[in-house]
């Protein structure tokens, strides 16, 4: 029936179907092939391809329109073009272990199960099974989400740090350890002042971008760290139209940065200038994370899963994972979208695993992995870099899970009050010590010991006056 060509990675999604024909969106995912996006019109049962075209992956709305118009045209004209069938074999190594047992997925099987409508206004919109509304009872509009996605994609490169820090101290450069130490200081400040995650992630992003742009001296790191936190707090206050709760002076004194509030204000201005920041416009991994969560949650609803995957309550855990990731320099240079996708899918894996412990997971759930590949393609993430990011994330997470101590420890300042400093240890006040008197020791002029047979000669003249009571205190191990 079909000649098996060399297996290639791809994802197939049905966009719409009408009259036995389906508009299929097929993405070739080969290393380096970012633009293998085809739109096909294929018959559901005979697999005949009516129409096939290569389209630009970013041009999402046009894809739908193009497909639909082609479908309508084809149906009207009634022509059947013949095109060589392609043997479709999926080998997807990218997304985890919980794949369905059959690697070879027949196209019709996919067509029925995975349906993802891009255009909610279409009258022929159909969904398999009832979708599960999310907890707020509001369903995200997928189109709007995709619009947001595209916006973020465009801005991503501008806000991507590229740190190239040495591991060891050489010629006065900031090391990876110093960067991680600064990230930990920011995290501690966030916990201390009960700040939202946005502030922390924004602050770390500022820090990394500043270090990417400027070569700084290690002695300035504390001041830069606090300044980034300062800017992040300001941004957050502005975006949310709230007054900031933490003053610069408080930040400086608590973090022990050995600089003044004035230094921090000045440094904040320097950083703002150098990074040419516009108000609150930085795109961080957190924005990606939130958006991707909504996209995937919406897709999960579309697939008709009975259990909500990536409900809004999962956001907390996602943010926690992100915080763990960015505190380690290993994940910093990744594209924020890749990192976010990696984290989102890690969470999905965990949720599916939990689900599988309670009841069998329906096959539809695994469509989420296909959806992931779709997102990956949409965002032009190549496999190699995605895999690298995923491995780095897993390494960081594994090290976190082992509850290991951080390799670097901040030197903290302990300023004691006068009164306490005067007597720290009671024996500090000892002015004299008498020479030791050895037990069982004979003084210089003592009488020589009498020879006894078979008994100790020590303390021959001493009598123990403590009554040898049978009742001994509990703790004296005797």
């Amino acid at each position, binding site marked *: 029936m079909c000649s098996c060509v060399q297996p290639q990675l791809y994802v197939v999604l049905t966009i719409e179907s009408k009259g036995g024909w389906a508009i299929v969106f097929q993405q070739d995912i080969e290393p380096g092939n970012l633009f293998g996006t085809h739109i096909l019109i294929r018959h559901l049962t005979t697999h005949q391809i009516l129409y096939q075209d290569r389209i630009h992956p970013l041009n999402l709305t046009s894809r739908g329109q193009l497909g639909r118009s082609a479908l309508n045209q084809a149906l009207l004209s009634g022509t059947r073009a013949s095109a060589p069938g392609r043997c479709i074999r999926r080998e997807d190594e990218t997304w985890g272990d919980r794949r369905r047992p059959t690697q070879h997925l027949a196209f019709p099987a996919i067509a029925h199960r995975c349906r993802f409508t891009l255009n909610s206004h279409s009258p022929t919109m159909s969904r398999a099974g009832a979708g599960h509304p999310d907890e707020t009872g509001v369903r995200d509009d997928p189109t709007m989400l995709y619009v947001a996605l595209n916006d973020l994609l465009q801005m991503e490169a501008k806000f991507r740090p590229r740190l190239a820090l040495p591991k060891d101290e050489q010629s006065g450069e900031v090391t990876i350890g110093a960067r991680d130490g600064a990230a*930990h*200081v920011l*995290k*501690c400040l966030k*916990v*201390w002042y009960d700040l939202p995650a946005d502030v922390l992630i924004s602050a770390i992003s500022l820090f990394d971008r500043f270090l990417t742009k400027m070569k700084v001296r290690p002695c300035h790191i504390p001041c830069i760290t606090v300044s980034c936190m300062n800017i992040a707090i300001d941004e957050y206050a502005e975006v949310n139209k709230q007054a900031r709760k933490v003053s610069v002076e408080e930040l400086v*004194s*608590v973090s022990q940065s050995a600089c003044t509030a004035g230094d921090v204000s000045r440094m904040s201005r320097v950083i703002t200038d150098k990074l040419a920041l516009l108000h609150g416009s930085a795109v961080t991994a957190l924005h990606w994370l939130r958006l991707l969560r909504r996209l995937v949650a919406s897709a999960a609803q579309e697939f008709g899963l009975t259990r909500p995957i990536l409900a809004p309550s999962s956001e907390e855990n996602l943010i*926690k994972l992100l915080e*763990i990731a960015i*505190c380690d320099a290993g994940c910093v240079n990744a594209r924020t979208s890749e990192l976010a996708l990696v984290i989102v899918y890690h969470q999905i894996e965990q949720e599916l695993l939990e689900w599988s412990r309670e009841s069998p997971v329906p096959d539809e759930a695994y469509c989420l992995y296909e959806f992931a590949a779709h997102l990956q393609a949409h965002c032009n993430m190549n496999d190699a870099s995605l895999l690298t990011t995923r491995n780095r994330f897993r390494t960081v997470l594994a090290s*976190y*899970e082992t*509850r*290991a*101590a*951080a390799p670097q*420890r*901040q030197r*903290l*300042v*302990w*300023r*004691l*009050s006068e009164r*306490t400093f005067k*007597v*720290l*240890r*009671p*024996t*500090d*006040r*000892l002015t*004299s*010590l*008498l*020479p*030791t*008197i050895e*037990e*069982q*020791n*004979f*003084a210089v*002029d*003592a*009488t020589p010991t009498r020879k006894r047979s078979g008994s100790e000669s020590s*303390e021959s*003249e*001493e009598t*123990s*006056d*403590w009554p040898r009571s049978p009742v*001994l*205190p*509990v*703790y*004296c191990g*005797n």
Partner: protein
Amino acid sequence: MSSAPFVDRIDPFAKRSLKKKTKKSQGSSRYRNSQDVELLALPLLKDVPATEQEDLFIRKLRQCCVAFDFMDPLADLKGKEIKRATLNELVGYITVGRDVLTEPVYPEIIKMISSNLFRTLPPSDNPDYDPEEDDPTLEASWPHLQLVYEFFLRFLESVNFQPTIGKKVIDQKFVLQLLDLFDSEDPRERDFLKTVLHRIYGKFLGLRAFIRKQINNIFLRFVYETEHFNGVGELLEILGSIINGFALPLKSEHKQFLVKVLLPLHKVKSLSMYHAQLAYCVVQFLEKDATLTEPVVRGLLKFWPKTCSQKEVMFLGEIEEILDVIEPAQFIKIQEPLFKQIAKCVSSPHFQVAERALYYWNNEYIVTLIEENNQVIMPIMFPALYRMSKEHWNQSIVTFIYNVLKTFMEMNSKLFDELTASYKAERQKEKKREKERDELWKRLGELQLGAKRAK
């Protein structure tokens, strides 16, 4: 008729007797001799031939048995000077003299010492004498006493001193009287007594058990009956040198002493007078036998001061000294109860207590121990630290708390995050419960109003 000044007999506070009360003289200065005895100025020992020296020595010793009244600074100046000079001479005589300590001399020496030293100690001039605050009343006859003590010490430390002869005159009765003198208010006297008793303990093996027992009695009486004794510090110093010399394995008698006597000494109000010596003794015990750590720490926790913050600071200092020398295996046994107490100290509104407790995290060795056992310790400390970070009034304490939390975060990030999350969740639950309770009361109030109106 003498015009006596009017004495109001109705007013109970009026002076009943207008005669000025003469101060009762100190026991050491009480002049008992019924007849005035002029001290004869005897020739110097160096001026007599060697054969006569022993006799002269004894005569001089007997001369020095006469007591003089030092309360009256002008009384009998000549006699006092003769005695002083004689004592001085005798000190020099036994220091440089060779073979001057002959057998007959021993009892004479002891007689002289006894007659000068052994006296009933007067009650304190200041009836509310607080050893921590007030200056002590010094011994009036110190010019003579000092020389007697000096002489005694040289006697005991002399190379010619023979304990076999000495033990006939330095017996239990003598030692008992010596021990009573430790209650003297004069610190110079106690210092001499300390050294003297130390030498006696070292040289007379037969007296060691007795001395230990009597010291225990003194301490137990001090802790459980009187809470008054001026010489606790000096006795502890002697005990320190004894403990240092204990042979291993430690005898159970010594372990009992630690638990039954040394630990309860921590209870007394005037602990600050002798805490340094006491802590030294305790730490020495632990260096001898590490298995005593658990009873010691549990004992200290049992006696932990609840109302006296100064004492709490002292206890914290002692605990740090114990932790400095603790073995990791022993630490594990006491970490839970200890850190529960430390968490309470950190929450104390007294800033010095909180400060001293938090300062433990500046001690590298303690931080290492905490790190090895952070799964146990962090959950105990965390709630107190987190709460105090928001509530404590003292800024420098808040900085210390930050330091400790940062250290914890670096030790075990995951546990730190878990504890933060669970603490926050607990707070949410609590707030919810409080809100529900308020709602319930409000509803009940409304119900009641409704019922009233219905009537």
